[in-house]
């Protein structure tokens, strides 16, 4: 059964438990892909703050209690969704509409992609593509995926099509993996801040929770950078989860990281994997941004490139075309795992996460076209990402706003703490709302389970004219706000951490 959010959403600072078990609600005030935001004043309907599902209007509802919970997910997400979609910016039709710098989509390369997808090799229709097929995905596609990943992940030995399962997107993969690896109520560890929609993906069907490994911006001890993940922090989070009686089954790593844009070095990765092995944890490595590393110097390495995995049977890699090929609407994701039990179990659920045969064919054609990818698409995409990134980061620098970004992904993790006088999540939400009122949609840190109020994620992978306008609107808001703000009371922003540890 679902455990309902036990805390009132209007007091988010108190939600920062060491695990986000009771915290389903607060991480789901997001929209579209679950990353944007919801209204500050939104509370769980008729929810007095106790985990009793019966409180969600049971008498009038046609739904089961889990159905009411699921509906709540949707409704809360729809708020932000509606606001944006009812007033979407359009250069000609709605120039005063909302600019979306909140959803992580790459809108820089539609020209290249539409061209490629309109080529005659994409239009093939044949009976076998229209009929039931292997639920793991058509063999021709799995072969292509294996070759593609071998090449781009630089695997020491060729990857095998048997280890590939194809589904309709990364969300489905999280759902299926959670279901087959965990019992209901069990948990995955995840370093925060993280892509918040995962909470919903693992919860809807799987009823699996996320136990947060809280990272903070302050560089202490042996840390070399803000929000650094270390084995000590993993150990501590795991212990805490255990002490609360939560059974942890695995660890989720996103590499390149979302929203930090950070990259784990091969050594770090190895350490995390060894940690996981020590505790017999599965590791799900989400590499959905692996080809969106636009700074060569970042030195990204896929987990599939490691010579030796500490625990190959418990290491499961995810990739999708949503980000790297800027096609979130295409719904193509894939699992690579050497564990045949896991592959088979996930495939057993693929009936529900199937991808149209015609689209499978198109994906195979796309992934196969190494010349176009290497010579046209990737260089162009990286150049455009880099230009957009440079623009936004310079804007931020000019404003004297600190931020983090290491040359991967579509976003910059921006530190707006100095604009929050009291350093609370209420203020973070107010600021977010002020942005939205000024017609620019951003994602706030709380949606990523960030424990420090005041961080925002800016998505920069959009066309220049929209980006300029978006940043202009951001500037206006901050200009109006910045006078109010004092220096960031650093002690205050540390408070939650003191309470917790």
């Amino acid at each position, binding site marked *: *059964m679902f455990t309902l959010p036990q805390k009132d959403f209007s007091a988010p600072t108190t939600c920062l438990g060491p695990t986000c078990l009771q915290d389903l609600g607060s991480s789901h005030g997001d929209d*579209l*892909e679950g990353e944007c935001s919801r209204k500050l004043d939104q509370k769980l309907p008729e929810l007095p703050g106790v985990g009793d599902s019966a409180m969600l209007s049971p008498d009038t509802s046609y*739904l*089961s209690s*889990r*159905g009411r919970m*699921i*509906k709540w*997910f*949707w409704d809360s997400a729809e708020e932000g969704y509606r606001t944006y979609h009812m007033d979407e910016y359009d250069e000609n039709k709605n120039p005063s509409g909302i600019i979306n710098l909140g959803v992580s*989509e790459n*809108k820089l390369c539609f020209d290249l992609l*539409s061209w490629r997808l309109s080529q005659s090799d994409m*239009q093939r*229709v*044949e*009976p*076998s593509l*229209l*009929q*039931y097929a*292997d639920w793991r995905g058509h063999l021709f596609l799995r072969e292509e995926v294996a070759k593609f990943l071998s090449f781009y992940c630089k695997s020491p*030995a060729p990857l*095998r099509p048997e280890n590939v399962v194809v589904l309709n997107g990364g969300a*489905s993969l999280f*759902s299926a993996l959670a*279901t*087959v690896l965990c*019992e209901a109520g*069990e948990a995955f560890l995840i370093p925060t801040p993280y892509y918040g929609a995962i909470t919903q993906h693992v919860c*809807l069907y799987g009823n699996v929770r996320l136990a947060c490994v809280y990272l903070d911006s302050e560089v202490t001890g042996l840390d070399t950078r803000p929000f650094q993940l270390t084995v000590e922090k993993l150990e501590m989070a795991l212990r805490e989860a255990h002490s609360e009686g939560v059974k942890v*089954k695995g660890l989720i790593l996103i590499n390149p990281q979302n929203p930090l844009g950070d990259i784990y070095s091969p050594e770090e990765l190895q350490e995390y994997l060894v940690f996981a092995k020590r505790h017999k944890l*599965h590791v799900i490595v989400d590499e959905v941004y692996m080809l969106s590393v636009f700074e060569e110097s970042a030195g990204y390495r896929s987990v599939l490139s490691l*010579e*030796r995995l500490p*625990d*190959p*049977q418990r290491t499961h890699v995810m990739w999708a075309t949503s980000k790297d090929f*800027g*096609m979130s*609407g*295409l*719904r193509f994701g894939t699992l690579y795992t*050497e564990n*045949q*039990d*896991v592959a*088979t*179990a996930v*495939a*057993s659920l693929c*009936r*529900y*996460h199937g*991808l*149209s*045969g*015609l689209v499978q064919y*198109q994906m195979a054609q796309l992934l196969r076209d190494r010349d176009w990818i290497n010579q046209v698409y990737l260089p162009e995409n990286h150049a455009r990402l880099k230009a957009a990134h440079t623009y936004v980061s310079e804007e931020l620098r000019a404003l004297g706003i600190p931020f983090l970004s290491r040359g991967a992904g579509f976003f910059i993790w921006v530190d707006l703490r100095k604009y929050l006088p009291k350093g609370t999540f209420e203020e973070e939400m107010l600021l977010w709302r002020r942005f939205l009122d000024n017609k620019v949609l951003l994602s706030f840190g709380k949606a990523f389970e960030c424990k420090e109020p005041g961080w925002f994620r800016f998505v920069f992978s959009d066309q220049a004219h929209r980006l300029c306008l978006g940043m202009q609107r951001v500037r206006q808001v901050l200009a109006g706000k910045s006078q109010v703000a004092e220096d960031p009371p650093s002690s205050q922003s540390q408070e939650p951490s003191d309470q917790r540890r």
Partner: protein
Amino acid sequence: MSHWSDTLPVPSGQRRDQVPRDHSIYPQLLEITLHLRQAMREHFVQLTSRQGLSLEERKHTQAIREKEALLSCLICRMINLLQSEAASDLELQVPLPSEDSRGDVRYGERAQLSGQPDPVPQLSDCEAAFVSRDLSNRGIDISVFYQSSFQDYNAYQKDKYHKDKNTLGFINLGTSENKLCMDLMTERLQERDMNCIEDALLQYPDWRGQPFLREEVARFLTYYCRAPTQLDPENVVVLNGCCSVFSALAMVLCDPGEAFLVPAPFYGGFAFSSRLYAKVELIPVYLESEVTVTNTQPFQLTVDKLEEALLEARFEGKKVRGLVLINPQNPVGDIYSPDSLMKYLEFAKRYNLHVIIDEIYMLSVFDESITFHSVLSMKSLPDRNRTHVIWGTSKDFGISGFRFGALYTHNKEVVSAVSAFGYLHSISGIAQHKLCQLLQNTEWIDKVYLPTNCYRLREAHKYITAKLKALEIPFHNSSSGLYVWINLKKYLDPCTFEEERLLYCRFLDNKLLLSRGKAYMCKEPGWFCLIFADELPRLKLAMRRFCDVLEEQKEAWIVKQLEDAMRE
């Protein structure tokens, strides 16, 4: 496997840590259980691997194998439980099933050895999933349930009949697919209007389905279901297949362990969809073939039967949340009259039950004298907030590989809750565009597709039923769907589900995949479902194999009679 090789399986019972950290009994129990399994396995191999068995002994062997499978499953469950406990105490490695033990080619092998007992115990598939350190219990359940339901289908996928390349491959008359109009569909989907790549199609969609597609679905259903008023796109949710819609509905209407009533026999996929994710029970409302005073037609659904099943379930403490109806019915092929449909709906209303109506075959009614009445055509629904309609293109347009299913419900709560699953059951924007174009073109559908499809279905049905009549095989005469529901009772001696299974295996051995009544929760052994929506040459060959098997079965029966007589 490949380069990740440093955790090669360690032989059973060997410990990595030589010194146990405490004296938990789990590792010991685990080892004992592993030994037990090994011993059991050897014993069964001995029992079943003798050559030159008589027919009766062979049947006996089958029975032994069933037992073996059961025992093995139980032991594997034990091992699994023990492993999870033992793992926390000791690093104890259990051999992983090696790759070649995964019986991919099992049926291929068996078919070649047709008539001989299988020298290898039939455990490999099951076991691969069962003995897993890595899956959760529900993961194991899902895997095993899937494999046991689909292993024959997977065998078929790997060894499909092809008129030139693989003449000895499987012919599948067991999966409900319409392969009669592939030419039309292929052509239609290649037309220019189908290929459109717009930015919006490549971006995150509305998770309920793109607005243009939901509008089209509403229009389409208004027209083809003859809805009295225009249907509302806001009541439509579009997902990647009807099984996804059903799964999502089961999630939001029931809590785990709660139940739906379903008249049986019914489409086996529902059992699947209710169990894998949702953990909802399907309670069969058993229908009978025999015509009696109360049962005026074979497999007739009456309110009395519904009521009886409901009360019985309640008596057993089950919480029934809804009723599932398939109309046109699968596998019987019957169509509910508006009157009876109304009665079922009123019954549901009386007991506050949701009604899920699956109308996925609504355009596959091939007898022109019969009119299908969609539930959406009713002037007023007894309980419209509890009536949810499912339709998809898989059957009516023969494009099961397209993955499209739609929900239509007036209930806004259900719409919202099911929409949350849009993340997990989404359809590619490119495919949504094609579907919209397909549904939009009513002229082509009305003038080209539907007439041709109905004609071809009718012809194929005619061919199959003529064959069946010639073979004097009784069947349920219907005029819709892609299948005939046939009665092979007279080939079973004794008439049991075990015999039904053996006959099914005999078909398989002859490379013919059929569906048996048990898979549809039919109460009476001996019924089979035969999908006829296939091209004539394949259908002919399939029927030849079908006749051969029945011949074989008859001979075997005679031999058995003789043997029995001689013994006496």
